[in-house]
């Protein structure tokens, strides 16, 4: 019954259609780039990038209200902040070496502080802060959908065109370096793509929960994949299912869609990880029995 209500609402309300499109677009970007992030083990860097994005969003939001710059969508601010943060982390890796994590943590908190400062100094209502932090997928306007489409094209093209290099950098950086791959370039490139992917996720789950959607579906997909591209495809499909289901479940009882989606993703992640061991053992036993019988 809830499902049919939801389906009816999709036909009726354009904001729900926008929400579904935004969820699917974010899921595709997440599947491709999240796979690199998880296998390269830079999920904490992704977390730092996500939070520092608030600085740019807050600044754009402030300028939009205070100076009347209507064209300045907060997502533009988010993009600039995300790319800037990606470059800072990349530079820190080259020059700060083992102090890299300090830079990552500092960026995390300072970015948020800047954002909160701007949002509190913005005249008028401040309901948008909650949207940025915890996501509100039904807030996606047409301008945002257009931007998300372009971002998706950029991210997926970048992520797939350099698949071989990124795979090598994620799998064995030293070897890639010795084969003449410019690993500093590709690492920075990967961080930039990660930063842009985070921007696509802001409305879906909010910056606080971005890492969960970026890593949980990917990690589940990884259990069923023997190739990186399989992991990408599976993760994108699973992520689309999760965001859509999250939205559908939250719509009736009026739950926060971002948090609902994350809890759903978390449940799948835990179940698959708990079930994977016993399942694998069961399969092995079955195969052995069959071999013994044959």
């Amino acid at each position, binding site marked *: 019954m809830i499902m049919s209500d939801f389906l009816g609402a999709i036909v009726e309300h354009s904001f729900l259609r926008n929400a579904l499109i935004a969820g699917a677009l974010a899921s595709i970007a997440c599947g491709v780039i999240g796979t690199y992030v998880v*296998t390269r*083990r830079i999920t904490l860097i992704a977390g730092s990038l996500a939070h520092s994005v608030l600085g740019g969003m807050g600044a754009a939001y402030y300028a939009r209200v205070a100076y009347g710059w209507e064209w300045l969508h907060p997502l533009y601010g988010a993009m600039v902040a995300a790319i800037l943060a990606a470059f800072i982390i990349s530079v820190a890796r080259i020059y700060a070496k083992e102090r890299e994590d300090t830079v990552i943590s500092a960026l995390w908190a300072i970015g948020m502080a800047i954002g909160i400062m701007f949002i509190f100094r913005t005249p008028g209502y401040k309901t948008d802060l909650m949207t940025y932090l915890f996501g509100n997928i039904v807030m996606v306007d047409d301008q945002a959908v257009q931007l998300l489409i372009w971002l998706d094209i950029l991210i997926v093209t970048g992520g797939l*065109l*350099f*698949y*071989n*290099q990124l*795979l*090598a950098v*994620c*799998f*064995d950086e*030293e*070897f*890639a*370096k*010795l*084969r*003449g*791959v410019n690993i500093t370039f590709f690492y920075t490139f990967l961080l930039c793509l990660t930063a842009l992917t985070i921007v696509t996720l802001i409305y879906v789950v909010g910056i606080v929960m971005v890492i969960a959607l970026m890593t949980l579906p990917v990690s589940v997909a*990884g259990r069923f*994949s*023997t*190739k*990186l591209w*399989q*992991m990408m495809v599976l993760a994108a499909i699973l992520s689309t299912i999760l965001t859509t289901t999250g939205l559908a479940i939250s719509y009736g009882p009026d739950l926060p869609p971002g948090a609902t989606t994350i809890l759903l993703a978390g449940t799948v992640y835990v179940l698959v990880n708990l079930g994977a061991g016993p399942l694998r053992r069961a399969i092995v036993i079955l195969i052995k029995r069959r071999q013994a019988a044959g």
Partner: protein
Amino acid sequence: MSVESVISIRDVFFSFGRHIVLENVSLDIEDGEFVAVIGPNGAGKTTLLKLILGLLEPQRGSVRVFGTKPLAARRRIGYMPQYPRLDYDFPVTVGDVVLMGRLGLSSKLGPYPSSDRQAADRALEEVSCADLRDRPFSALSGGQRQRVLIARALAAEPDVLLFDEPTLSLDPEVQHDLYELLHMLNERMTVIIVSHDVGFVSKYVQKIVCVNRTVVLHCASEINGNIVSMLYGDMDVRLVDHDSRAHNHD
């Protein structure tokens, strides 16, 4: 100093801060040689390899590979590290791993061309692992993994193979097969291995480089029977001896 030297090291000095790792190191490795680099732990073997690869720069002296700077010659070297820092849960097949050896040789964008795939298949055949191509890399045994990584290095069609502690954590039978494989590869390329396993090595190699802050060369023929076990047993003592300018190699 001949022009064709694969590797030519002159008066190299290298230190990590105040800790001197290598000093007065001079060494020539010629085309087609099978060379073993031996020495106790912390003697500077891996540092020597990294200087050859251009991953480290000497503070003094020069390192030339194929007559140029190591960085420029890097693509002609197939290198296998001592402990490849690999994630063995990484979703990647054996074929994909070997194809990585083709990076930097052909087109930069999009999928690998069929010529790269053929080169990767040839490399896998050479290490007798053609049947493993579609297997997940994570499902291999230690010996298979080693062979696949050799295939990855071979796919790059190198002129010299650099191998850091190839026999570490392999059982004796697999070790033997590995040396036979390296011996076969030595017919068309220079092979340099770092090893503590002198006994096995001396059967195949022509030249032994003893490293302990500085290097001393031996012909493999000098090292036979009892001497091997003596050297192996008292390696530290003997190599410290070498350090005190007992040998001169100019």
